[in-house]
């Protein structure tokens, strides 16, 4: 097989790790964050708003999936306390693929931090007003101009936070790839990884995906219309 890095550790088996929805949400967020940045710099706030609504929908879905999705995508399965996180951090210098199926305790906190930063970004964007009072988020009619300007200000800070987290995220992946010879990108594309033995992860049935998509779309649509009837 082509995956030499894993063969060093053990011959093992190829097994499913990430389900389709988790991978699609991940890469769609990458694309939309880049597009949101670009459209804001270009001053095309119409596209920026649409991009933000899409991010909002994906975020709602991902939070839902963190409770109702497949085992490897559930917050309950990967978010660990400080003791477990510290114990994991001590093993970081060890090379090779980890035996944790999915997010390790440190990566889990990075997932939580990124999701919270994006939540902050989307929420502040909904209430933000531009300096001219010409362009604004769909819920900004609920606040006055000065408050909307504060939201716009926080919207900029939280974007800086996202940039910092993305740099850390990519740096961590590069560290795993180069130092630990552990490719994390491949599984996020194909959904599969080589394990010493099949971890026997369970995956959510299709109707949960449909339900989550309907909920996310409904919330996104209502907010994009400013929650006005």
């Amino acid at each position, binding site marked *: 097989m082509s995956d030499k890095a894993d063969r060093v550790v053990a011959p093992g088996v190829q097994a499913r790790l990430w389900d389709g929805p988790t991978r699609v949400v991940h890469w769609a967020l990458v694309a939309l964050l880049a597009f949101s940045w670009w459209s804001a710099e270009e001053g095309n706030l119409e596209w920026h708003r649409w991009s933000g609504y899409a991010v909002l929908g994906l975020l709602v879905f991902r939070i839902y999936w963190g409770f109702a999705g497949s085992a490897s995508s559930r917050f309950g399965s990967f978010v660990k306390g400080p003791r477990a996180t510290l114990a994991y951090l001590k093993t970081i210098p060890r090379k090779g693929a980890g035996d944790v199926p999915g997010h390790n305790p440190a990566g889990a906190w990075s997932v939580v931090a990124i999701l919270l930063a994006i939540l902050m970004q989307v929420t502040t964007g909904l209430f933000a007003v*531009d*300096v001219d009072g010409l362009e604004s988020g769909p819920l900004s009619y609920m606040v006055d*101009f000065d408050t909307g300007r504060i939201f716009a200000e926080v919207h900029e800070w939280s974007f800086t936070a996202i940039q910092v987290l993305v740099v850390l995220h990519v740096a961590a992946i590069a560290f795993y790839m180069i130092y630990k010879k552990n490719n994390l990108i491949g599984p996020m594309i194909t959904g599969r990884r080589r394990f010493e033995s099949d971890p026997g992860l369970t995956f959510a049935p299709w109707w949960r995906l449909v339900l989550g998509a309907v909920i996310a779309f409904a919330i996104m649509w209502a907010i994009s219309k400013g929650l006005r009837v």
Partner: protein
Amino acid sequence: MALALAGGLATAGAAVAATSAQTAHLRHENFEQMGDAFKRVNDELGRGSPSKAKLAADAARIQKLSAQAPSWFPKGSGKEVRPKSLTLPAVWANPTDFANKMKAFQAEAAKFPRTVTAGDMEAIKAGAKSLGGACKACHADYREKKS
């Protein structure tokens, strides 16, 4: 005596600087008023059935402010006196073009209240859009980029 004179000049100079800084700050506050009025217009237009009375009130505010706007840019009231100011030196470097864009904005701001009074909602929405366009036309060249 010379020292006293120099001191006097320095004080006078400081006073002048303070005044232009105040002018720059006042300009900022006036533009905030304009932004506030414009946001209210857009908020109102986003409602199911916009109130024409509210639209008329804010349209009048914008027009009143636009009439004063050319007087907000005396020479020497830029970044040099208020570092936070977003006004670009181009305002004083290209006075003719600046004045023309200002006139175009004033014309739109004068037209908008009449459009509101006439009452056709689609025309009001179009009017708000072209008024916003007149704001942006000037900001593109004469104000520092700010989101």
